């Protein structure tokens, strides 16, 4: 099986895996990083979202063969102490219900705020419209996203 160097949350790993293995399972099964979730396996629900060189991607649709020399951020690596402005905004608005979709939502927003520090509510909706939350926590997601933007979530 091929070996590739992949940087995850700032740490370089040399990983051996089948080329067709989705990054989601590299993270979960090979590295034991379970913050990234399997939801639908079709790239539609957004639960498996991680950052690839800072940009949100679907890890269930990214093969190991495409990961070489790239840098990834998962929910575990968003901040060392769980105090990134987006995480703090999420806590302030008490967004999460079952919590399963939240890592993906948070990383999608991180990606948006990186390219646009002060998005409008419509821009936030557009960025998050490819994610689903079955608990229906959308109104709070939107509020937390606006709060995160105001409090420097794009930095």
């Amino acid at each position, binding site marked *: 099986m091929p070996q590739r160097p992949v940087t995850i949350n700032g740490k370089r790993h040399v990983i051996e895996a089948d080329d067709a293995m989705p990054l989601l399972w590299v993270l*979960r099964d090979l590295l*034991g*990083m*379970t*913050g*990234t*979730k*399997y*939801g*639908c*396996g*079709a790239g*539609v*629900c957004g*639960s498996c979202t991680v950052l690839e060189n800072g940009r949100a991607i679907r890890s269930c649709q990214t093969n190991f063969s495409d990961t070489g020399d790239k840098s990834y951020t*998962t*929910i*575990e690596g*968003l901040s060392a102490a*769980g105090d990134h402005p*987006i*995480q703090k905004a*999420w*806590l302030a608005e*008490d967004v*999460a*219900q*079952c*919590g*399963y*979709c*939240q*890592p993906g939502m*948070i990383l999608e927003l991180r990606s948006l705020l990186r390219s646009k520090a002060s998005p409008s509510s419509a821009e936030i*909706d557009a960025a*998050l*419209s*490819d*994610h*689903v939350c*079955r*608990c*229906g*926590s*959308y*109104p*709070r*997601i*939107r509020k937390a996203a606006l709060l995160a933007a105001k409090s420097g979530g794009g930095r």
Partner: protein
Amino acid sequence: MPVLGRNVPHDSARGHVTGESLYVDDIAPVAGELLVDFLWSPFAHARIRSLDLTKARAADGVAGLFTFRDLHHNLFGPILKDEILLAEDVCTFRGQPIVVIAAENARAIREAKNAIAIDLEELAPILTIDAAIAASSFFPDPRMIRRGDPAAAIARAEHVLEGVFENQGQDHFYLESQAAIAYPGELGALTVHSSTQNPTEVQEVIAHLLGLTMSQVVVLTKRMGGAFGGKECQATHPAVMASLVAQKTGRAARIVYSKDDDMHATGKRHPFQNRYRIGFTRSGEITGAIFELYSDGGAYADLSPAVMARAMTHSDNAYFLSDVEIRGTVCRTNMPPNTAFRGFGGPQGACTIENVMQEIASVLKRDALEVRRANCYQIATRNVTPYGQLLERNTLPRLFTELPARCDYAKRMDGVREFNATSKTHIRGLALTAVKFGISFNTKFLNQANALVNIYLDGSVQVSTGATEMGQGVNTKIRQLVADELGILIDRVHVMITSTEKNNNTSATAASSAADLNGGAAVDACARLRERMTPVARNILSVAAGAPPAAETPQKSEIVFADGFVFDQANPAKKLKFEEVVSAAYKLRVSLGERGFYATPRIDWNWTTGGHPFLYFTMGTACSEVRIDRFTGEMKVLRSDLLMDIGRSINPGVDRGQITGAFIQGMGWLTTEDLRYTESGELLAHSPTTYKIPNINDVPEIFNVDWIEHDNPVNVYGSKAVGEPPLLMAISVWCAVKHALSFVSNGDIPKLRVPATTEEILMRITQYARGEAQLTS
């Protein structure tokens, strides 16, 4: 500072934003752990002519394949005990497990599955309610609720309305699919982590099917990534399959359904076909009503009889029916066994009569709100349900008065009429509906719970109950109740993983009542702990005071637990830390652990004499306005206003989240979630690529959620259950669509199915534009 009534954050809030929260499949694998999957029937109805596992068993990495022959028993079910776990000679639904496969890795599972030689003869299936009625394929027993003489009342009525209300099912679409891990233990024992709302049922069925005693099986549930009723019974199948592998191989075994398999193989919200015949006066008051409800139960009974009972006891919804007959029949089909889904039949019953209200308004050319008010349950009269329960502390008249004022109903209704008279591109609709949702399991014996509260030497506290956390915040509420009862800071209370080892014979976390039941049990345990600690504290305080309190003390002597301290209210200056009293009690050999129990009082009901199935009702009114594109059928919810009576909220933040989320989930069922099947019963919408649950763009543009202050003295802290009732408030959106269509239906009653998808709406508009005769449904 009181901890009840405050927005204490969800107790998993932090783990949810850091990725630390563990769901079943996040538990690290142990050495030798196997993966488990299953071969399921590709046909809705088929005979197994032959099954040869020889090649599959020989495949590389395969640890074992198992069939019904490997089970001690193969029959189970929460009500009727009619369900076969692993198909024997006949498969009765598409998705039914036939062979359980255990292997070292996913590749070996795939190879083994492909190497199974099975020969199936497809049999004629029953796939719809109509087909089941034609074949008289029903589950026992048809039920009836009756009061007065509705047939005579309808015969005398000024107006008569007849029709059929039909709804499709709804997939639960919890993002965390069904999952379980089973660990073999000593002497045949099993420990199972299960994503289930009902650890006791999982424990019971594993024990029964594998030939163990319940005491040999421990089932644990930390949390679920959503459940919504879909993990009440259907979590049992994966847990038994993993347990079977653990039993047979002596190795840990993990099963996690793929999203597609989950959607194919598990039951859903029940499709209903409800026929109604209504007599009413020229002012819109219903004088007689006959409802005939049919549900699609699927291949096995599962919870269908109980779902039907709730549909029947919610067919009145917020409206008094003097002369009424409600009949309910569950159809047996070859669909996956339909099951609990938030609302549990209540939405199908309530939507039928809300539909009737809308249609009466169409017939009389009156505002539907006037019709609803004319029929609403009253305070002193017209206050007994068809099944004989007196409506106490009824806030419906108030909610029907306050919400229209708050949301400017009359003015906006004029606005809708004006808009529709002038717009050539869009139509609007406005509807104000209600919910009255009975709280308690209809099945009396399920209304019980126990809780274990342990106080440790440092004064910290663990509480364990049978409640399972699926995001609804039940653990947070229980934590608040325990902190309040013991008068300690909330950080000192930890809610433990739900385990059948600590809490036995628990009921499902269902019927919105987990906080009521388990909270009640936790409060009971705390009260007895406080009772035992009180003399200890009194003794220390009186020794410290040196003398009994002076006679002029304004307060009577009473030991109080508050804010982390224990003191005599007659002398509040002298305070003991809670942990000091704990330490003293321990040294005096006073027990610092307690098991509490709660059994819902007052409830009693049966099909023959009726009675009081519910401890109380959660109520609300909702008003929604929609805008529809006449050329595409696309619908947008412009505004929704919700006003509820949820008693005294234990946690307003949690409750607001529940109300908001349930409403959005209800909107999904009523407007976008379209379960399409082929003619042979194959589900086409088996992934989010084809099954549309609401996203952030579907939230009403203006969305106001509020509740009135109203104590509920019969329940813990005066609170009310809130998990399911607000889902029924989304019926206002569906009724608003129906109202909008009434402007283009050429004077006919507009017919509308559930879900009112873009396609369904466009078909109706097109049909009316062509002047075609209306469809029957």
